[in-house]
C-alpha cells in the first residue's frame, strides 16, 4: 500500500516539474515570437498608441494617487525615525533615495501588473475563448504581431514613464508632509536630496529596473492570456496567475538587479 502512495507522490512531482519546464519553454518561445513579430507594432504605430492609452494612460490615476500617498507616508515615518537622531534634515534624501531606487519601480510595477496586466490577460484570454484569435489565423493575420506585440511594446514604453511619475509624485508627497506640514527646513530638504541622489547611480538604475519590470510584467500577462484555457474558469485563473506571478517575478528580479547595481558602493 505504502509503495503505491509513494509512487503517486513521485509521479505528481515529476508531472509538476515536466509541466513547469514545458511551460517555461513555451513562454520563452512565445517571447521570441513577440520579438520577431513586433515589426508591425512600429510600422502601424497607431496600434501601439492605442494600447499605450489602455495600459499607460488608464493606469495614471492609480499610479499618481499611490505615489502621492507612499511619499507622504515615507515623509511621516522617516521624520519620526530621523528626528530621534536629530537628523531630520536628511528627510529629503531618505524619501528620494527610497523612491527612486526601490519603491518607485517596484510599486509601480506591482500596481501596473494588477491594473494593466490583469486587463491584458483577460482581454487576450477572452479573445481566445471567443475564437477571435483563431479567426485571425483563418484570415492569415498573424495574431502575435497584430494583437500581442503592440500590447507588449505599449507595456514596455509605459512602465518606465509610470515609475518616473510615481517617484516624482512621491517626492512631492514627502515634501508636502515633511516641509509643509511638519516644518523641516526647505533648503536642507532639497539640498540634502540633491547631494545624496546621483544621476547615474540612482536615477538611471531606477529607470533600468522599471524597463526590466515592464518587460517581465507585460510578457507574463500576455503569455498567461495567450496560454489560458478557452473557458470562463480558465480566463479567471489566468488573470489571477498573472498578478501572482508578476508580483513574485518583480520582487525576485528586484533583488537580483539590486545585488548587481548597489553592491556596497
Amino acid at each position: 500500500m505504502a509503495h503505491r502512495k509513494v509512487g503517486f507522490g513521485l509521479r505528481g512531482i515529476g508531472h509538476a516539474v515536466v509541466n513547469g519546464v514545458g511551460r517555461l519553454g513555451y513562454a520563452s518561445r512565445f517571447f521570441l515570437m513577440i520579438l520577431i513579430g513586433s515589426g508591425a507594432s512600429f510600422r502601424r504605430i497607431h496600434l501601439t498608441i492605442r494600447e499605450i492609452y489602455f495600459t499607460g494612460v488608464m493606469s495614471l490615476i492609480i499610479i499618481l494617487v499611490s505615489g502621492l500617498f507612499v511619499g507622504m507616508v515615507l515623509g511621516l515615518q522617516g521624520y519620526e525615525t530621523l528626528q530621534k537622531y536629530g537628523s531630520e534634515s536628511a528627510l529629503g534624501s531618505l524619501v528620494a533615495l527610497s523612491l527612486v531606487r526601490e519603491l518607485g519601480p517596484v510599486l509601480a510595477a506591482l500596481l501596473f501588473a494588477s491594473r494593466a496586466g490583469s486587463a491584458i490577460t483577460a482581454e487576450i484570454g477572452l479573445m481566445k475563448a471567443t475564437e477571435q484569435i483563431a479567426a485571425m489565423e483563418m484570415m492569415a493575420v498573424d495574431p502575435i504581431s497584430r494583437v500581442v506585440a503592440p500590447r507588449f511594446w505599449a507595456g514596455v514604453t509605459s512602465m518606465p514613464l509610470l515609475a518616473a511619475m510615481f517617484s516624482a509624485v512621491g517626492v512631492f508627497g514627502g515634501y508636502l508632509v515633511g516641509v509643509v506640514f511638519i516644518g523641516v527646513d526647505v533648503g536642507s530638504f532639497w539640498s540634502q536630496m540633491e547631494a545624496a541622489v546621483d544621476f547615474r547611480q540612482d536615477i538611471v538604475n531606477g529607470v533600468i529596473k522599471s524597463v526590466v519590470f515592464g518587460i517581465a510584467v507585460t510578457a507574463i500577462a500576455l503569455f498567461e492570456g495567450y496560454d489560458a484555457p478557452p473557458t470562463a474558469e480558465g480566463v479567471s485563473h489566468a488573470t489571477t496567475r498573472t498578478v501572482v506571478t508578476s508580483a513574485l517575478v518583480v520582487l525576485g528580479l528586484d533583488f537580483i538587479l539590486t545585488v548587481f547595481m548597489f553592491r556596497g558602493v
Partner: protein
Amino acid sequence: MERTTLDMWVGAFMVGGLIALLILAFKVGNLGGYDGSKTYRVYGEFDNIGGLKIKAPVKSAGVVVGRVSGIQFDNKTFRAHVEMRLSQNNLFPKDTSAAILTSGLLGEQYIGLEAGGDEANLKNGDKFKLTQSAMVLEQLIGQALFSKASGEGGDKNTAQGGNKKP
C-alpha cells in the same frame, strides 16, 4: 474613442512621463547642480582618509566649494591620493591646507580647506602641501588610554585625545 483624442491623451502621458524623468534628473538628482559650473582639479595626499567617499563635499568655512572626485592608494608613498574638483569661482592660495573632518559625531566625512596667505593661487593639477588625516576613533581612544596610564603629565601631550576619553 476618436483617434485624435486618443493621440492627445497618449501624447500628454508621454510628455508627463518625460517631465517626471527630467524633474528626477535635475531637481532630485545632482545633474543640474555642481557639474554644470567649471571646475579645476587639485590633489591631496593623506595618511588616512577614514571613511571619506567619492562625491564627499569639500568645504571651506563651512561652504561647499567642490567635491571629492577620486580616491586612490599610492603604491609608492603608501598614502591615500585624493582628487578634488573645486569650483572655478573659488580660488585658494597655494599654501592652503586640507583636513578630513567629520560633520557631527557620526556624520559623513568631508574635506575642510583652511586658506593660507600666499599671493599665488592653486591651479589645476596642484597639490596641497599641508594635509591632516581623518581622526580614527579607535586611535583616539587608544591614545587617551595610553596617556592616562603613563601618568598625569601624559594628558597634556595628547592635544586631540584629551577631551574624548571613554
